[in-house]
């Protein structure tokens, strides 16, 4: 709770995706350690799942559709298929209580480091989802399996697969003076600039800044002291080149949308998780998220889809947490565009700590965009007490900002998302969306008219 100067004086530390976590507080540090050991408890289970996916004749490509496919209601079916495949026999399906799995798994080293943690059995209210692949994903895909599982989930739901050659030729097709291309170029260095894999290393400039210092520190003597998290290679241009390729290819193949800030973080995060050497896979997931998961026209010329999502969140906030909503209204800060714009435009990957965001994305990829509302509501709920103590817009929103930025306890967030905010039927979400659409359209038209008529 106390945010003041409770830092370990540890040397440079990076999380699984190359983000600096050396400055986080002691509480957050403890949360990370605890969550890591929970993750490790599921590792054996995931290894078995991956093996059975591979055994099914590399099932992923066989289900891949290379043609366009509409994101229809039969989304659930391929998930059920993979669920059967992964969960295997009935035995596998029943083996769903987390503690049991721990016993069955080949003793993971990390779990001995924090033996106190017994992962809570996470069962739906009706106890049904517990044995499904969906439930397994809610418990978190281990970082080392995400490069396989994320593209698999996207492909199962009809993501279009393209090879790298296709991306290259699409990218080359952009005109030299293309405005989107210029903005992409400008943002390459401004996308997670603090990340190990994405930051610019001035190899030819030697003004001995911090960058150089910690590069040295990690490359020599220190090696064995660095924790066992996989650290992306430092200073490579691979990520930056792959990021450019993805953004240019998307912009070229979606001329009506082009490039919108926000996409850069989504693409970069996918590259950090999936790896630049699998840029085609990363792109498939990227296009899937943008074209099929996010509300249509989220990134268009006036972000109309994002406005719909934001207004929908506002309606859900009022419905779910009337007291908090009233408090925020009183301080004139209940409009979600004040605090949630980046939640929808970057799918929270810029807002949350990376390892937490990855957990949210696990479920977004398996369950769809509704999860983003759950995550948003969960963050609001987790911050509620502190927000209610705020006595003006600034302190209310600051409390929410802190909650989000410091949300290293991914177990707590996921538990709140799926068990702490009550039911959220798709019908309710859709009704709120439909209502928002017309309001947003009117507002945008209104603003446009005002702008164009007032050239006095």
């Amino acid at each position: 709770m106390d945010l003041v100067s409770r830092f370990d004086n540890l040397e440079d530390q990076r999380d699984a995706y190359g983000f600096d976590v050396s400055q986080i507080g002691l509480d957050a540090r403890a949360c990370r350690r605890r969550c890591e050991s929970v993750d490790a408890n599921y590792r054996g289970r995931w290894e078995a799942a991956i093996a059975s996916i591979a055994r099914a004749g590399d099932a992923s490509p066989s289900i891949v559709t290379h043609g366009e496919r509409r994101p229809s209601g039969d989304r659930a079916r391929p998930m059920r298929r993979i669920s059967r495949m992964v969960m295997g026999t009935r035995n596998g399906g029943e083996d769903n209580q987390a503690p049991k799995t721990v016993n069955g798994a080949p003793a993971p080293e990390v779990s001995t480091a924090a033996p106190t943690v017994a992962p809570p059995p996470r069962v739906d209210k009706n106890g049904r989802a517990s044995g499904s692949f969906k439930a397994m994903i809610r418990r978190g895909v281990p970082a080392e399996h995400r490069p396989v599982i994320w593209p698999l989930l996207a492909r199962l739901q009809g993501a279009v697969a393209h090879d790298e050659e296709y991306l290259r030729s699409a990218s080359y097709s952009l005109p030299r003076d293309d405005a989107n291309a210029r903005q992409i170029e400008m943002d390459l260095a401004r996308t997670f600039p603090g990340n190990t894999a994405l930051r610019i290393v001035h190899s030819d400039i030697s003004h001995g800044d911090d960058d150089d210092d910690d590069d040295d520190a990690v490359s020599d003597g220190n090696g064995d002291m660095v924790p066992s998290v996989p650290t992306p290679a430092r200073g490579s241009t691979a990520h930056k080149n792959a990021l450019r390729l993805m953004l240019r290819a998307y912009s070229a193949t979606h001329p009506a949308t082009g490039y919108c800030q926000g996409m850069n973080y989504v693409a970069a995060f996918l590259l950090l998780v999936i790896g630049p050497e699998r840029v085609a896979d990363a792109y498939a997931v990227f296009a899937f998220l943008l074209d099929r998961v996010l509300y249509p026209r989220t990134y268009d010329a006036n972000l109309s889809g994002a406005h719909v999502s934001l207004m929908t969140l506002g309606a859900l906030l009022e419905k779910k947490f009337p007291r908090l909503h009233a408090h925020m209204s009183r301080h004139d800060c209940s409009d979600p565009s004040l605090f949630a714009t980046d939640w929808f435009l970057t799918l929270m990957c810029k807002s949350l700590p990376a390892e937490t965001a990855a957990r949210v994305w696990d479920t977004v990829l398996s369950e769809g965009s509704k999860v983003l509302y759950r995550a948003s509501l969960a963050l609001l709920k987790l911050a509620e007490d502190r927000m209610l103590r705020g006595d003006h817009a600034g302190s209310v929103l600051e409390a929410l900002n802190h909650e989000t930025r410091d949300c290293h306890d991914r177990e707590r967030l996921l538990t709140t998302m799926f068990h702490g905010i009550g039911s959220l039927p798709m019908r309710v979400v859709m009704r709120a969306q439909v209502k928002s659409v017309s309001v947003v359209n009117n507002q945008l038209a209104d603003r446009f008219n005002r702008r164009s008529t007032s050239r006095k």
Partner: protein
Amino acid sequence: MEGTIVNKKLVLLGDMGAGKSSLVQRFVKGNFEDYQESTIGAAFLTKTMPELGLKLEIWDTAGQERYHSLAPMYYRGAAAAVIVYDVTSPESFARAKSWVRELMRQGNQDLVMALAGNKADLAAGGDGSERKVSAEESQAYADENGLLFLETSAKTAQNVNELFTALAKKMPRAPPPQQQAANTVQLGGNASAQGRKRASGCC
């Protein structure tokens, strides 16, 4: 002491890459990054200026054109606005002018505005060949429209504190809280703002 601090909202507007976030970072945290993250939506920071009895709630907005549709939410109820352009980019100056027009249209008489010609270090260095917008032109435009004008550099810190301090001093002095809430409502002037008025009336 605590009781004398007044909250004021300040918004930064301007073209993508003009240096809004860098100016805020320089002012609030006192440093500069060669590569500043591009802003999505708006970033929100606060800075207390005890000597002026002020706490600034700073809204640092995203500059890409398509984020324009969000801007009214961020400048609504603001006491001050900084409109930033990049002295090496004429397009960013044109964009700054259109922001000024938009803000004037909002009809908030009390809004204090400043125009900041940022990246002055690039213009000052060597023969200054990178400069594309002259200080004279900007000064004339600012005078014409009653804006504060300063050339700034987030990199060297030139005029950054001066900019925010000058704005803070020019802000109308603290109205009582009720009156402040009423102001806010007037600015919105739409259905939801009416709802807010009722909400704030009841407490």
